């Protein structure tokens, strides 16, 4: 049994040694895929869960939260995709946004490296919420409305509209 166990450990040890060697010598060998450059969060010091947990499990949290929001109307902020984007994607003026097609985008940086396609942004905006909310100039309606109020921790649509004005997104 002991022999079998140690045999199993051998590849792991080799891998660990390999990783250590790589980290000691950052210059990747020819043919290696370069490590992803993960853009720093634009606001906030700590993610909603430890980084290691989020790296491994973010898709599970998002999937769970998506169904709760869609079917039960639960709109807490913790695993809201919009909150991810608000912290991790820089707010840029129109025309200069970093889109998910680019490796400069927080999501795509790792996903390109891992070779995992992201479907989220076929429907969801890949920009922080302020940037995507703009009003059609034909409307002539003022932005925001007197009856609006924010409940609990959920962002209301009108809050987002107000931000768009402050950001100079006309």
């Amino acid at each position, binding site marked *: 049994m002991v022999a079998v166990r140690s045999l199993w450990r051998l590849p792991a040890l080799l891998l660990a040694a390999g990783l250590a060697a790589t980290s000691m010598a950052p210059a990747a060998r020819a043919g290696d895929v370069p490590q992803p450059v993960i853009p720093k969060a634009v606001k906030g010091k700590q993610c909603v869960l430890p980084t290691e947990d989020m790296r491994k499990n973010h898709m599970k949290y998002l999937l769970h939260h*998506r169904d709760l929001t869609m079917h039960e109307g639960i709109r807490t902020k913790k695993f809201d995709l919009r909150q991810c984007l608000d912290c991790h994607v820089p707010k840029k003026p129109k025309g200069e946004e970093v889109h998910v097609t680019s490796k400069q985008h927080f999501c795509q940086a790792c996903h390109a490296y891992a070779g995992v396609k992201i479907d989220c942004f076929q429907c969801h905006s890949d920009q922080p919420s302020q940037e*995507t909310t703009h009003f059609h100039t034909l409307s002539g*309606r003022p932005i925001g409305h007197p009856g609006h109020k924010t*409940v609990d921790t959920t962002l209301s649509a009108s809050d987002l509209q107000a931000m768009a004005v402050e950001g100079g997104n006309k």
Partner: protein
Amino acid sequence: MNEDNNNTDLARRRFMGGLAAAAAGTALAPGIVLVATAEAKPADQAVTSKVRWGMLIDTTKCADGCDACVRACNEENGLTRHDDPLRDAQWIRKVEVENPDTGYTHAFPVMCQHCAEPPCADVCPTGASFKRADGIVLVDKHICIGCRYCMMACPYKARSFVHEPLHDQKSYMPRGMGTVESCTFCVHRVDNGETTACVEACDKDGHQALVFGNLKDPNSEIARRLAKYGGTEIRKDLGLDPGVHYKGI
């Protein structure tokens, strides 16, 4: 309209394609105070069947040539892409009806009627079309395969299909190619204790033809008005129990 000649009336109706001509400018009525119609639920609690959201459309107050509700919906949900009603998604549209005997015409908005027995949900092969506990009928685009059975099943022609890849969606209203969509009763606003964009726009323009509220709360404005003045539903004969009620048709 009484129930017996529902079918005849509908057969006579001439549905005008597209939207009514846009009014060049929109006169805003200042000082209109919006009444919060929705009791906000805590963000971490699920919707319940204690509430049933509905809308009352008073067609006698719906102004001719006004399409404020349509424009508000398009803006709120980011539907305007080509600025062409034949190609853009339509979640709400002004329908003009005419009585050919008398020549009397009037127009009113038609959108998803948020049926209690939604035929779209009945025919959906994946469960993407569904009715929330509070009566709002939605498409879960995560599981919609774009087969469009729901569009065929809907007697109100309320749904649109997204044919083209989209970008710059509203962050609170995801939309994407290959999925079906329709009026959500502005679910992102309603969950936040606000009223819908179309109601807000109609009130702002001073028409107040639209009332949104909880049909199950006897003290809500919509329930009181329905109790006092009554209302009718389009194609009531189908027995779908729509959440959208009309007055004056």
